[in-house]
């Protein structure tokens, strides 16, 4: 499974658990308007660490703005 698909699946799963209405996951989608809150996004990051084996957020200072930026963080990671 590609990193993108893994990330996308995790967004959809967490949105469902958190009873949140997730907008379609396009690269341009602003995470701020995605329908998820900060707790949901943190939950996604924690679970992705469990499944892909790394946490790219441990060292960054700003959260990605769009869904595309978020995916790139994982795709670009050498991990």
């Amino acid at each position, binding site marked *: 499974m590609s990193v993108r698909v893994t990330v996308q699946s995790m967004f959809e799963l967490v949105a469902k658990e958190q009873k949140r209405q997730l907008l379609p996951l396009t690269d341009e989608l602003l995470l701020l308007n995605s329908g998820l809150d900060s707790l949901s996004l943190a939950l996604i*990051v924690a679970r992705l660490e469990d499944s892909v084996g790394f946490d790219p957020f441990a060292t960054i200072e700003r959260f990605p703005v769009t869904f595309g930026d978020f995916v790139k963080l994982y795709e670009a990671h050498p991990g």
Partner: protein
Amino acid sequence: MRTNTTETTPSELPATTMESFYFPSGEQSLFGWLHAPAGPQASVGVVICKPFGFEALCGHSSMRKFAEAAAGLGVPALRFDYLGTGDSPEIDPRADQVDRWTRDIVAAAAELRRRTGVERVCLVGIRLGALLAARAARDISGIAALFVIAPVVNGKRYLTELRTTRLAALMGMPPVAADNRFGGDVEALNPGLMEFTGYTFSADSIAALTPLKLSAADSPAGAEWFIVDRADLPVAKDFNESLVAAGVPSRCVALPGFVDMCLVSPQYAIVPMPMVEALREFLQGLVGGPQLAAGEAPRIPKSVIQGEGSAALSLPGDGPDSNLIERPVCFGTEAQLFGIVTEPAQGDSSRRAVVFPNTGTDFHMGASRMYVTLARTWARRGYYVLRMDFTGIGDSGGRPGRRDNDVFPAAALDEMRAGIKFMRDRYGIQELTLCGLCSGAYHSLRAAAAGLDVQRILMVNPQNYFWKDGAPLDEGMHVAEAVRNPGIYRQRVGSLQAWKRVFKGEVSLLRIARVYTVRSFLTLELALRDAARYLRIKLPQDLGWELEDIARRGIHIAFIFSTGELGIPLLKLQAGLSLKRLGERCPVHIIEGADHTFSRSGARSLMAKMLTQELMAGSSASGAGDTANRAAGGASGYQEFHLFSGVAHAESTSKNALRRTSSSEY
């Protein structure tokens, strides 16, 4: 205060008691509840060690259920608030919370022993509470067991998770340090401190927590472990294996329910019954009680408030001999209602009061503990302040036939009436303000509209002004879409990208149609209602008429919103022409850079100043003789509260952080 418990379902369950009190921990006092069996008591007791921050807010009802489950088995259980959390006193923002809270657990275990005479103690720790419990256990003699749920096994990883939450919360916001324009940002004021969704860790706490790990070497001699791991994100398997390898009796099971217990919006929180049942079975094994038959549902007694004791907490005031008193209270005749009253210094005869109803299903401390902070601030200015729980929420009892954790309980109005009556009867209150966030604002409005005896309503971020009993919570979302989305759709109609998504089927045209249909109805309704108002015809469920009627009765009204809140356009849509008529009698403040629950301290501080200003507006407290009020305003006295009251000033001072608009301009 002592309360009796009644059963949620089976009538044959033995009654248990639930008593609130303050107990010493070092030089401070902590707030706690003791759940004790009415019948024979086991020789083992339980201390519940709560999680940190938002998880503790969200998980409050589960913490209570764990305690009730233990008491129902004959095992007394103490749950309490660490220093600086819940209803306990404040903590120095520079203090090492890890060290302090570990000592608080040791003190709680001693208090449990003193009150019940139990010989051995089982610590039940949730998340960070599990890590703290493991540390505290070394200093508690007679530890029987540690029952830990979703334990933090690695402090550094836990902090990383919190940092991610914080980073995500700051999306689209200015850097935190730049948000200290009004002086209330705790991170700017305390270097190294970090705020996570409204709750802080000091620099020393972060330094202490970073290297901490759950370790088998730290397990107290003779204690056994039961580990409930998260089914969605298991992390404790290795720790369990290390315990077993070290010869420590330990079991580990992964159970579902942690996310629904601690990591959702509190109104969606669900008590994880598989975990409650695991605790019951574990305790039954510990005390030698009977096991449930296979498939038999657990029966847990539930508390109902019955009486009131003499528990009280003394808090520092503004000067010598000006200490505040805080005390748990219960009131209500039909319902069993619980709250905490903060009383001003003795001798204050102003007889002014504020009542806070719940925000959503957050228990009485409020989101980011804001009701506690506001209550203590306003008590220092002479107000009696009650933060109360509706039935089925927080520490109040339930109502037969009604579900718990209901944001809009059908009896809310009766329970507000009971809270108001209690304050007037107990303290001789003459001037009473209702103040609430989100649904707390809604309930305040409904109370005033229903003619309850109040003089002021302060509403922060209401998301709706009418509610149909039994309606699903997401009903508000449909209205939100109808109010917000048409503007977004209009912006996108010329976007090639947007049309590509339509043709790819990524956009629901049905949803857009629904939004426009609802919006059209709302707009039509507004026009009809405005026409009726113009003709002085009163229609049912008319917000504009209600606000005018409330103002006509001399009740001061004020709204405070975060930018982008749904309640802003909805207010305009549903109150229409009446807002213009009300003018300065219904000020609307908008704070930019704030989220719905004011989870950042800078914005929260500004909101508190605005509320204080509106609380004092037209009050006897703003009179020339009110020295406390003048003192709070500094050298310029009361004028400080006007700092944010003018548009021109706001623009020159705050870079649009705050806008105050009279409703006629709005």
